[in-house]
């Protein structure tokens, strides 16, 4: 067999040092993505550093409001947390719309954010893929690409980020806490993932070996009225064909604040700032929601098989916002 070493440190510094010392090492959390990719030969780490014994569990309410979610908190645990359910329904719904009960019981917060694309070609070592094998080409660009990006892709890569959780966190302006050999730092969630550009193999702005220790979700009272709508090809256990996370804060009819993020449209969870700008300060109507989506999607460049995503995301944006607006009345 292909041998790899396995370590299970109990200390964050030790874990970071182990990764730092070995360019072919990888963190192992729930393993629901990494182990699959190892079996397929897509990822071939020679050292697995298991993060499950690190003191990174627990969901703590923060003194100033908001939540701090440990990196190894399981997706099912987070979805069931009473504060999440009450204050951040968008988060709970995104989590519960993902995968299956069994996968969610294993999948961790950090692992979810760093899961790899579901692009067919990435997962098949017999096919060209710049992300897996830089310089080999992008088979998806002119191949089967119905599931892939409409925004911000490059000739080098048209993949999408598959996570549902990440879309909610993008909308909530979460912050990622990271431990690196030099110390710890905070990374705004919307800056965690990169555009593919010429280097789709670089998926995040983290340096190699960085350990995600927690995700902070700032207080956002408006998020009590929030929604996650996911469109998929079967009723459960399917990645999104397109999804929308939305928070809407109305003052009377006027949009005081709005947070909007799209899933399954780009290499990164897509915060829809342009759409938000269209909405803010105006009286809410479904038509306005449509115009806002149009503004965001004006930059869309569909691929051969995914042109339908543009009207789909538009329709789901309108639905999500309209439902939130109506639920308030």
């Amino acid at each position, binding site marked *: *067999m292909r041998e790899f070493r396995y370590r299970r440190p109990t200390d964050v510094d030790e874990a970071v040092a182990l990764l730092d010392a070995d360019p072919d090492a990888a963190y192992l959390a729930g393993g629901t993505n990494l182990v699959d990719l190892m079996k397929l030969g897509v990822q071939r780490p020679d050292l697995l550093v298991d993060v499950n014994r690190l003191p990174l569990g627990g969901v703590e309410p923060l003194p100033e409001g908001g939540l701090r979610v440990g990196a190894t908190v399981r997706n099912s645990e987070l979805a069931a947390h009473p504060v999440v359910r009450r204050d951040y329904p968008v988060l709970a719904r995104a989590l519960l719309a993902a995968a299956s009960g069994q996968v969610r019981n294993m999948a961790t917060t950090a692992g979810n954010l760093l899961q790899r694309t579901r692009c067919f070609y990435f*997962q098949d070592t017999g*096919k060209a893929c710049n992300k897996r094998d830089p310089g080999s080409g992008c*088979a998806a660009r002119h191949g*089967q690409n119905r599931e892939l990006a409409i925004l911000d892709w490059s000739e080098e890569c048209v993949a999408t980020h598959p996570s549902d959780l990440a879309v909610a966190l993008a909308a909530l302006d979460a912050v990622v806490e990271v431990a690196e050999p030099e110390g710890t730092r905070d990374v705004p969630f919307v800056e965690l993932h990169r555009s593919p550009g010429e280097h789709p193999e670089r998926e995040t702005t983290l340096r190699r070996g960085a350990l995600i220790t927690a995700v902070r979700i700032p207080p956002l009272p408006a998020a009590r009225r929030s929604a996650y709508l996911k469109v998929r090809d*079967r009723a459960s256990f399917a990645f999104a064909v397109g999804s929308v996370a939305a928070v809407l804060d109305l003052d009377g009819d006027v949009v005081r604040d709005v947070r909007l993020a799209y899933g399954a449209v780009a290499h990164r969870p897509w915060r829809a700032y342009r759409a938000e700008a269209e909405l803010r300060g105006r009286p809410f109507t479904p038509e306005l929601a449509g115009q806002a989506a149009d503004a965001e999607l004006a930059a869309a460049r569909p691929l051969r098989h995914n042109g339908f995503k543009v009207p*789909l995301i538009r*329709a789901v944006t309108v639905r999500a916002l309209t439902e939130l607006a109506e639920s308030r009345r």
Partner: protein
Amino acid sequence: MSAGAVGRAHPRLEGPEKVTGTARYAVEYPLEDVTYGWAVPAAAVRGRITRIDPDPALAVPGVLAVLHHGNAPRLSPDVEPELYLLQDPAVHYRGQLVALVVAESIEAAREGARQVRIDYDTEPHSTVLTADHPGLYRPEKVNPSYPTDTSEGDFDAAFDAAEVRVDATYRTPAYHNNPMEPHATTAQWRDGRLLVHDSNQGSTAVQAALAELFGIPRDSVRVISEHVGGGFGSKGYPKAAVVLASLAARQVDRPVRLALTRQQLFGPIGYRTPTIQRVRLGSDADGRIAAICHDAISQTSTITEFAEQTAVYTRSMYAAPHRRTTHRLVRLDVPTPFWMRAPGECPGAYALESAMDELASACGIDPIELRVRNEPTVDPDQGHPFSSRNLVACLIRGARRFGWGDRDPRPGARREGRWLVGTGVAGASYPARARASAATATALPDGGYLVRINATDIGTGARTALWQIAADALDVPPERVTIRIGDSDLPPAGVAGGSMGTASWSWALTRACQELRDRLGHHSGSLPPEGLTVAASTADEIRAQKPMARYAYGAHFVEVRVDAETGEVRVSRMLGVFAVGRVVNPTTARSQLIGGMTMGISMALHEEGLLDERYGDWVNHDFATYHIAGCADVEQIEAEWVAEEDSDLNPTGVKGLGEIGIVGSAAAIANAVRHATGVRVRDLPIRLEKLAGSSSFT
């Protein structure tokens, strides 16, 4: 006479073993000294292997051997081209299993398989089925031995003259059989004899093929298939895994376990061919069909010919004086298609039952009424009488149960919030056949009975049904009967396929049991320690059956909800009513029927092999990317049957029900989607963009 076990619900005999995990499947038998195989798929589509370098694989600790065409034991070339594995350097499709690594552990075998270096000389390939492919040809016959084309009357003239015409082309994609248990084998040679534990739908045929391939007598081969985790047709004939494992076991002189991976089930084991089907129906204004034509195109490989009998369904389903059916094939550089649940009938019924719905709309009459009006009195194809034909009974009963009567036929008329709601119906039929089998029945001195037949229970409940039938035939309580199946040392029997299993096997068992009762009637004194055994075979009886049209029938009723904006489709209700002769065990019968219907939902909405013509293979080849309907996709599903006595079938009066559940089900869904939205989807699966993107969709 009857002890009354037949017709009573009974849980599977082996249920407790299965749910507690003690039932052993092909690669689960504990075995000393066992080794593991891992197959290597070809990375070229068409060409030849010019060089194989096994050294990097052999350098992996634990790897024992790399088998390939240059060193594998020789096989007889005369058995079946598909099974002539590792014998020559030709590559016929991407993913063809061209080498096998054997190792001390499964992990080492897998890593070894990744390290085998293979060079190819490649040639241009063609892997996409099109209606104008230059390679289209007319096969000699279609499966299993139907005429390729049929014609009666003058279709062209009658169609031209018809008041109402439907002319539509339907497409189905490649569908992949995905039994939970993959194709899997444990093979061991002992003193020139080959013993395999194998996952298949009929081990008599596996035994015969292995004997011929290796040039040894049949009784030197034993194939045990005690429990089989599904097959859906793909295990209906010996396939690669059992041959590769047997080759490897001979080479390394140790037992070898080989289970194909999920990815390897997308190709090397066969799949349902994509089809392109043109259906034309011409009728009068009242929907009386004068002309019916079904032209079907499908694919085969360059290895061997597989001619799906797609249009055969149309030959006998509805009446019309002028009729024509044709089949054309293209040899592509793809794996050979194979049987998948209701081969022929399943894709064919999708097309014809959709076209019937289109005709009903065109004539402005109810689709059930249309079918009733075109009910034939004798088989329109052969002119034979029907042994029984209860399509109309199924339609009428289903309509009542489903609440069809209140239906507003206008498309797009019913909206509930975000959902457009529609209902659809389709007919179904599947041949009721039987194949010769042999069985023995033994009376034991302790008052028990032992019945034996090499039947295969692929998860259907066949073992339990046969046990019930044997008990009745012996006229004893079933608890006194022991049944043994799933071993080629038992009396030979046909495959669990073609919905023929129970009909064929119960026939032989019944004859053996009846004969035993006769013998016991004349027997005096106590039985010898080994008991009294009689054997029976049905070969003569089946050969002497009078020609008749024997079919099971069914009707599917479906309600769908379609999201008005996203195009997402949900099947909210599904009802199937079937006429399947006698139902032996309602529990397992219902499972088969709703299983087939669920597979129909999957076919209509989810499954699709996505081919990338540049690479020549399907890019979605696991359960995360090749979607199969899950529990949440099946909201309310029910199967019922009408009482049916048919004395022209077999002693038990069963028609078989493993396949009829899928036939027509996808059409019923497509018809319901059209009713809900006004959009007729003629290429499966019904993906949301086909609905959301349509201009007539609101």
